[in-house]
């Protein structure tokens, strides 16, 4: 057994006290900001042409316009978010539609086991279907009681709080259900296929 490594002279800041510290996954630090991270330019999406689709292994596809989507039953979600770039922001307040609610509108094929969330500008991310069910995921269109801004993924983004934030596809355009798992954008670029912050599933 080798001695555990210690950084000479490092004490650390240990922000937030014990209660908050217990909610911060390993290797993360607490921030009060809402940093913006995207691989390319922020798309400006027109609400007139915005749609949200559920497709793939469903009996009948469904597509909502912006007006239709706003009429779906919405909920408020207060959740902790962790980004693989190491920030964690506690108690982020969102409003949107639970994926459970959306799934009431389609009949899933029994073979459906994985989901690709796809975005209006071409981004994709993959998740096991089980990670989107039972209140674990929602499509958010408000943050802090205000419409979700474009740089944070507005008009609407997927939010999956229990996974690193790259799984929470910005500018989301729909969910595609499939039998097999297909790696998305960051999952094909060296990042972990699943992304659980508590297991530090950062890279592949």
């Amino acid at each position, binding site marked *: 057994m080798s001695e555990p490594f210690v950084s*000479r002279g490092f004490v650390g800041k240990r922000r937030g006290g014990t209660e908050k510290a217990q909610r911060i996954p390993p290797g993360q630090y607490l921030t009060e900001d809402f940093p913006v991270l995207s691989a*390319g330019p922020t798309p400006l999406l027109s609400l007139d042409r915005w749609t949200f689709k559920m497709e793939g292994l469903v009996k009948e596809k469904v597509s909502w316009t912006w007006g239709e989507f706003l009429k779906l039953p919405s909920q408020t979600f207060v959740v902790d978010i962790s980004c693989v770039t190491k920030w964690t922001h506690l108690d982020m307040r969102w409003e949107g539609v639970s994926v459970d609610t959306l799934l009431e509108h389609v009949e899933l094929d029994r073979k459906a086991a994985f989901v690709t969330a796809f975005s209006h500008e071409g981004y994709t991310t993959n998740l096991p279907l089980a990670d989107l069910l039972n209140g674990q995921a929602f499509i958010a269109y408000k943050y802090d009681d205000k419409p979700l801004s474009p740089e944070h993924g507005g008009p609407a983004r997927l939010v999956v709080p229990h996974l690193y934030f790259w799984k929470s596809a910005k500018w989301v355009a729909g969910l595609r259900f499939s039998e097999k798992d297909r790696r998305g954008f960051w999952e094909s670029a060296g990042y972990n296929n699943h992304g659980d912050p508590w297991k530090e599933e950062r890279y592949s």
Partner: protein
Amino acid sequence: MRQPLDWQIATLKEVKHETPKVKSFTLTLPHWVKHRAGQHYDLRLTAEDGYQAQRSYSIASGPEQEREIDLTVERIEDGEVSTYLHEVLVPGDRLEVRGPIGGYFVWEAGLIPGPLVLIGGGSGVVPLMSMIRHRAMAGSIVPARLLYSVRNFEDIIYFNELEELRVDGSGLEVFYTLTRSQPPNWKGYNRRIDDQMLKELVKPFSKSAQAFICGPTLLVEAAANSLVKLGLPAAQIRTERFGPTGA
């Protein structure tokens, strides 16, 4: 067996003062792997009682610099890791790191065609400098233009090296904008990056230019949106951003 992204214990070889707030740290790695320009390393500090803090820092050196990497780090007021690196760490000290990480904000000479448009704000110039150093070491003559925004003249990182590289005949051009104060007889820009500045920057290049933008969110948002307006396809604009968050 050792996996590529396992933690390894690097040794600090030397520290270079770049600007009043920025230092470069040359680390010697026992398990060095050639990186791609634009990638980063994760760094982990551990206190006596086991408390740990991690951050990611862009690699400043080119992949041609073997067995070691340079990380250029800005000291953040009230920061946890950057203050330790700036104030405590001395040559000979050991540091846990893993990498290289990141597969999208990268440029490799010969692999990505088209002239290079590099736009950096503050310490966002670091991954771009890795690309510039790689371009020089690889002998690439693909046209490249760097637009670099900082507040004051003394905040320019790598100034002397950039001044040497811009006259080496390889086709690198460097444009500075100083947004807060300018020295007497300053001939560069003196305002925040805007549409007109970017129009001048990309003017000699066709629509085949590849753009890399790194810096604070507002700068990256503005520059990326402008380039889209100027007709550069979104797929050719790669961004890396950092917010005003305590690194």
